[in-house]
């Protein structure tokens, strides 16, 4: 074999492996989605959204778990978003030249990837131990702590994309700086910031680990934020590992619901981001 042939063959082999790796990645995604559709679709019947989680052996739905997940995700987003936006604003607008800003950015990036079960442990020590019982408030706080770093990151990135000339123009018109930020910069970066919030919602909607020691679970309908509350991830965890066929069936239904909601949020967020990138 000549050197030329050897190099060509080596190249073909390397590139084929690269093709195969991509195919494997895509196949895994489709296998997971296919399994969810096949096993979860039959579970989603009329009672799925209206009935409570059943005791083993009887029919039921996931109404209380769906409600609990919606409420805790909403509270966590409402608490976490303002904190994240203000911190991101500090990093992008006021933190230039300050010695604290790089440290905050660094710590935020660590929190962004920190294991979510540690967050659960922290909130357990912070709230559950003191209150003496598990509660939906504690679950919401744990989820909010996961929202903050995601929103900080996207807010900072998006505010940095706003051209400096826009700030200077607003300041030259005599607007105070806070007004420049709130009504000019935020408005210019709004789509990007919304994208960040949607990604954060998608992230916490499926989080299980931080809820294990905080919101726990509740077999019944409960709107009491001060007590344990059912939530989809925990119910999937409990039902999937149970030996009962009808519980496992519901777990697949819940898994299907949660995954497609999250994928939809992700795709919407991407469209929103892509659209806002094109407008300026």
């Amino acid at each position, binding site marked *: 074999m000549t050197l030329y042939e050897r*190099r*060509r063959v*080596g*190249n073909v082999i*390397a*590139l084929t492996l*690269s*093709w195969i*790796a*991509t195919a494997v*990645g*895509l196949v*895994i*995604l489709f*296998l*997971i989605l296919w*399994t969810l559709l096949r096993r979860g679709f039959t579970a989603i019947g009329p009672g799925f959204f209206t009935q409570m989680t059943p005791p083993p052996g009887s029919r039921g739905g996931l109404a209380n778990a769906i409600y609990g997940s919606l409420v805790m995700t909403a509270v966590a987003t409402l608490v976490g978003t303002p*904190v994240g936006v*203000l911190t991101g*604003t*500090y*990093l992008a607008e*006021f933190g230039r030249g300050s010695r604290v*800003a790089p440290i*905050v950015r*660094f*710590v935020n*990036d*660590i*929190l962004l*990837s*920190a*294991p*979510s*079960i*540690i*967050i659960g*442990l922290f909130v357990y*020590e912070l709230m559950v131990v003191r209150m003496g019982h598990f509660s939906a408030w504690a679950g919401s706080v744990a989820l909010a*702590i996961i929202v903050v770093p995601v929103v*900080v990151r996207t807010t900072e990135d998006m505010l940095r994309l706003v051209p400096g000339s826009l700030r200077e123009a607003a300041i030259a018109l005599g607007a*105070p700086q*806070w007004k420049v930020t709130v009504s000019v910069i935020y408005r210019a970066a709004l789509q990007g910031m919304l994208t960040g919030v949607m990604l954060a919602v998608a*992230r916490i909607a*499926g989080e*299980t*680990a931080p809820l*294990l*020691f905080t919101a726990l679970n509740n077999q019944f309908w409960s709107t009491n934020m001060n007590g344990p509350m059912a939530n989809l*991830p925990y119910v*999937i*965890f409990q039902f*999937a*590992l149970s030996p009962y066929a009808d519980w496992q069936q519901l777990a697949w239904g819940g*898994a299907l619901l*949660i*995954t497609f909601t*999250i*994928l939809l949020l*992700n795709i919407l967020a991407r469209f929103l981001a892509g659209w806002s990138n094109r407008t300026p």
Partner: protein
Amino acid sequence: MDLALSTGASGGLNGRRVQDAAFRGTTRVFAFGVLLLLGGIIVALAAGSLLAFSTFGWGFLTSQAWNPVKENFGALPAIYGTLVTSFIALLIGIPLAFGIAVFLTELCPPRLRRPIGTLIELLAAIPSIIYGIWGLFVLAPFLQSTVQPALIAVLGPLPVIGFLFRGPPLGLGVLTAGIILGFMVLPFIAAVSRDVFLTVPTMLRESAYGVGATTSEVVRHIVLPYTRVGVIGGIMLGLGRALGETMAVTFVIGNSHRIMPSLLAPGTTISATLANEFTEAVSPLYTSSLTGLGAILFVITFLVLAAAKLMLLRLEQRSAK
């Protein structure tokens, strides 16, 4: 005239200055809040695990005992399981992620680049618990019926590494957990690698093609050396994820507090132990030992993530120059 104007508006200016300072101050308070959050986590974990560390001393880190009845606890099996599953995850995740990143930057038709990249990123969006339930009901039975018997037959009798692949094919165990983790870290490593590959100046790349290099030679001799720090940073980021992953591992690892030489045997990780046992722990020492495990996990992931971040920052600074 100038003087009159500025004095005339001075009251308004002062008011403005106060408002601006208040706004700036508020954002700063929240930024400090993020630092406080990290501090709070460290304090809470330290306080919670104090009892365990004062009872067992440093022996907590090296003891293999895990006996809730006699209240004797050691972290070693969980630490071992965490490290081994993460190592397997990287062994599987890195080549796949690397291949995907090369495909997306060098081979893929431009029109498909975004859709395929998005699909790979969606792998990262699927929640951990979904990987867990899929691993338990689909992957584990598949491994048990086809892959593991083959491993036992082919690799089991080998001299040096054979002991890793002996024993019955259970389906659930350290290897299965590692494989699932590998699938989970793949999109993170692939995304970072792709992004850093794109920072290679087009001129460098085209010069190499211009002197007749093949695509694989360009990747190996131009792209990789240029982006090495970033790729390693991406790998560390994936490692940080793998170390702390909870639900997927809890479903498939088998939960046994014994260190077994075989990868096919059940084991446990720090996060899986926490998920399984924390709400059942009744005695203060049991709870404290579990919190101690959490503290160890936090220290390990903190170091890995910090290293990852510093490496990526270095690359960022270089490409900014």
